[in-house]
């Protein structure tokens, strides 16, 4: 009987068997990476907006407090989006004929709301409440990042469940004094002791409470 295969096939066949294992593992890894990649989470991606609003300019530049625009952040699950009127409070005086702001003026003129693209968008089956997080001393920056350094708004955290869980399991790592909540630049001196103390003071519930499903899902 003549040989069917060439000598080289010995090596090839053996190598390919082991290769297969690594290829499979590799694929799995790629999938998982993709699932956590900015492509999926939109982390750090700047989305198109009708008006190129700069948090950097308004917050660090002009020193406007978060609550000036996001009025209901302390009272409602929804932080609140400023109505056109709020913008115009200032912009009827300054930059009042810049083309950039035309959509805003138009909105007020025609009574048509400005349609922004959501940057931080949780799935509809997740019930996140701004007011309680603020009340328990979770700073804006903890989730939204250094907004004061963002010329254009972008999502800074992955906003995926494992990320939420991380904080619900270890609130002491994120909690800050209530009066520092809106200070985006605030840095802890000794978070370990501070966190432990604040968790006690603010009566932040145990991880077992905070990781119960119905805490966020209903």
């Amino acid at each position, binding site marked *: 009987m003549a040989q069917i295969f060439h000598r080289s096939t010995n090596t090839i066949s053996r190598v390919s068997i082991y290769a297969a294992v690594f290829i499979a593992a590799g694929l799995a890894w790629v999938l998982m990476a993709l699932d956590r990649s900015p*492509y*999926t989470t939109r982390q750090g991606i700047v989305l198109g907006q009708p008006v190129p609003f700069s948090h950097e300019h308004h917050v660090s530049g002009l020193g406007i407090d978060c609550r000036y625009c996001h*009025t209901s952040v302390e009272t409602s699950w929804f932080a609140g989006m400023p109505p056109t009127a709020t913008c115009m409070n200032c912009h009827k005086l300054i930059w009042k004929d810049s083309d950039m702001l035309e959509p805003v003026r138009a909105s007020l003129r025609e009574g048509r709301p400005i349609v922004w693209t959501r940057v931080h968008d949780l799935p*509809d089956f997740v019930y996140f409440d701004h007011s309680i997080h603020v009340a328990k001393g979770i700073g804006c920056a903890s989730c939204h990042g250094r907004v004061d350094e963002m010329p254009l708004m972008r999502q800074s955290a992955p906003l995926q469940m494992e990320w939420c869980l991380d904080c619900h399991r270890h609130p002491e790592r994120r909690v800050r004094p209530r009066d520092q909540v809106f200070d985006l630049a605030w840095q802890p001196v000794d978070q370990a002791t501070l966190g432990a103390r604040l968790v006690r003071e603010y009566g932040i519930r145990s991880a077992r409470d905070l990781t119960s499903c119905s*805490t966020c899902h209903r």
Partner: protein
Amino acid sequence: MSHEKANSLESARARLAGTRGREFWRSLEELAGDPSFQEVLEREFPAGASEWGEGLDRRRFLQLAAASLAFAGLSACTRQPLESIVPYVRQPEEIVPGRPRLFATAMTLGGYASGLLVESHEGRPTKIEGNPEHPATQGATDVFAQALILGLYDPDRSQLVLEAGEISTWARFIARMSAALPALQANGGAGIRILTGTVTSPTLGEQIRALRTRFPKMGWVQYEPVSRDGARLGARLAFGVPVETRYDFAKADVVVSLDADFLVEGPASVRYARNFAANRRVRVGHERMIRLYAVESTPTATASLADHRLGVPPSEVPFLVWALAAEIGVTGVELPKALPEERARFIREAAADLQRNSGHGIVIPGDYAPAEVHVLAHAINERLGNVGTTVLRTDPVEVEPVDQVASLSTLVDDMRAGRVDLLAIVGENPVFDAPADLEFKEALLKVPLRLHLALEEDETSQYCHWHLPEAHPLEAWSDARAYDGTVTVMQPLIEPLYGGRSAHEFLSVFLDDPPRRGLEILREHWRLMAGREDFETLWRQSLHDGFVVGSVFGPRKFALRKPAAAEAVSAIRAAARDATAAAATAGGAPTDRFEIVFRPDPTIHDGRFANNGWLQELPKPLSKMTWDNAAYLAPAAARRLGVASGDLVAIEAGGRAIEAPAWILPGHPDGAVTVHFGYGRTACGRVGKGTGFDAYPLRSSAAMWSHPGGTIFKIPGRRDLACTQEHFAMEGRDLVRVGTIARFQKDPEFARKMEEAPGRDLNLYPGFNYEGHAWGVSIDLSVCTGCNACVVACVAENNIPVVGKDQVRRGREMHWLRVDRYYEGDSESPDAHMQPVMCMQCEQAPCEVVCPVGATSHSSEGLNDMVYNRCVGTRYCSNNCPYKVRRFNFLQYSDEKTPVLKLGRNPDVTVRSRGVMEKCTYCVQRINAARIAAEKEDRPIRDGEIKTACQQACPTQAIVFGDINDAQSRVARLKAEPANYGLMEHLNTRPRTTYLAKLRNPNPDLEPEKT
């Protein structure tokens, strides 16, 4: 074949006779092994047929085959689509985005108002509660109030002004009217007729008065199919003047109900239910119960709480009242002769009991009982000295009480005689629901100009020149009086979705030029009422509270006419004579002869709610039937007729006949058949079309609520009825645990002893312990009337979808909370027991253990969480749930296509999609909201701060939710009661929902205590 069926039922009867004592019997037909029941059981075998949907062509085949392959390639990577966020241009001051607000308003049914609180999210009303401050209704609601929201968003509501079927506008209509009016005004408006329902609204009354001054000769007709003519006429006969009677069950010890469903039906029912329950609850240390005797011509939910029940054909009721009056010793009344002993004894004991408790008794006649019954009831209460304590008489609440049938028939005569030039029908549907003998439609067509203001394009609009969309109660300004006279404000929560206008605005077209808007009209009239000075404060106050403080009618003395009772008795005699005479002449075998009882449908009322999916799918309190009505028959009667539930029968009365499916209703008096109005709508929305049969054709102006001489016979054919509970026996399982108060006093723990529950230490594993809150619910079976308010409340609160008749028949209804109904005792007059069942939130939940993906697990506070977005849909949890309270989205049930329906959904509860399991969560969204509020204020959650939707709606406050770790909480104290027991506790599931055994308070003389 009807013979053999009869025989099989006969054998059932025989076997039933054998059972006695606390033995429970099984649902009739099954016991009889009736083949037709097997049919009901083997629900249409090739069910799949209906699933084919659109026809199957090559392309669809390939499409499907491809889909199945494509499915194989689904990857784990899911990316959310971009969403936009749209702020206000100018944000209203008072609105905090994301925070719901509550507004006080009201709804009317049969003209009477009940106070409501409506929850509104960014201007979208989403949930209705009772207004706890309202003096009349005190925060309780009935099913209709709960379902009002769906009616508001009903996409089938009429949306266009129609002139002769052509699209038109309000402006056009107004122009036409101002053109037409002068001519009509010429003869003092003699040709004008306005047809409304019962009117208690002061403002509307005022407007009509104004109209009359402008058109002195015009006619105002009040008619609605479900009204209280008997009561009105009775009052007139008894006192010579219109009198409103209301009852205070809080002070009563003995109640005799004469064909009255007073706990579930009628303008005052929710309040009556609350007071009655308050007086019937038994707790350690407070061990007295109000006693209820019920005489009824058709089984009612109220009677499921009765200690003694007597079912008789409607024609017998007057005799029993007569006998009662005689026993009580009402002057001028002596005992009727030839009363069967069993009934005589019942009346005798009831009378004795009443006399023992004179001043603390109530004899309450039903709204649908004939005038004579009301007269005698007045006399009896008078004689017993109940008047002033438990029975209160006031001026009429209606603006102008009239005999509605009489006023309608005069209208019809006028129309026939051509005396009517313009008929304005305001919010009523007489073409559909007027008594058949009047032949309203034919008369209507003789009227030159016919206007119709209504919520939907119904049977009447078809025959009117103008159809005008009416504003929904939640869209309009108005006012109305509650049953006790309290003036109640109705304020709009939302601009009319479909450009509708209120009755006020409609009448204003004939009054003012230009017509005024509702708010203006209302304020104007109120300014008159209030008198100038403090008007604004009164207005603001009333808007806030939802009613005018102190507008309740105080009780007054009315002199009972001496001869009234005697007259009533002779009237009864006369009626009986006529009936026998009629029967003698009437054809048909005497076995087929039946008295016919007419009732409004328990869920869709007189038909005005026919297009409300929530109410259509709501099981009827007693038959548990959905999406249909039926001819309810006594088992014995069915046996004689040889019919089984679902078989078609023809019912004939007064020369008119209808076809209806029969339904065997245990406890229904033999010799009578009950049919419900409201179904068989021919012109209504998609939901109501083609449901049930129309019973109005049998109704005549002479016999509005019962017909003495109808005939029934079986005809070929069946109608498949969608019933949510097919098995009514407890199979000797201690599900509803019943005992008399005597037994309770002897052995308070009797209920617990019925089935041993394993001790808490009996466990392979160490259990979890719950520090902090531990939520639980207690349900008091002694006061549950099975009125279903909790069910609809749950549906509204939790975005529970409507699945339709077909799916219900497949056993796929979605109600998280159901009211189980069991029968006990003899099939001809059994005791009915109601048991609300929702998720028990078992501490050792069988469902959780078997979920492969952990989609259901326990919260740290002992809630059995259900995470819809994690569920893969194995249904294993439901299989393993002993209470079968889990519901599965077998198909895409929640409507995602109709935008307007989305407005009404509760934004705090996920809308479930196809393929996921769902169930009661103790309204966890409310728990979380309350917790967040409390934690923001650094305070603990107060007991009673959280109310589940079912608890909030419950008229009798049978459901109590709270923290069982807090020994002082109401729920904890209830669970400490000896009568407290858990359902299926022997399975060691440790349910967080427990029940208080159902206690009865029978009269020892009528029912000696068994030992």
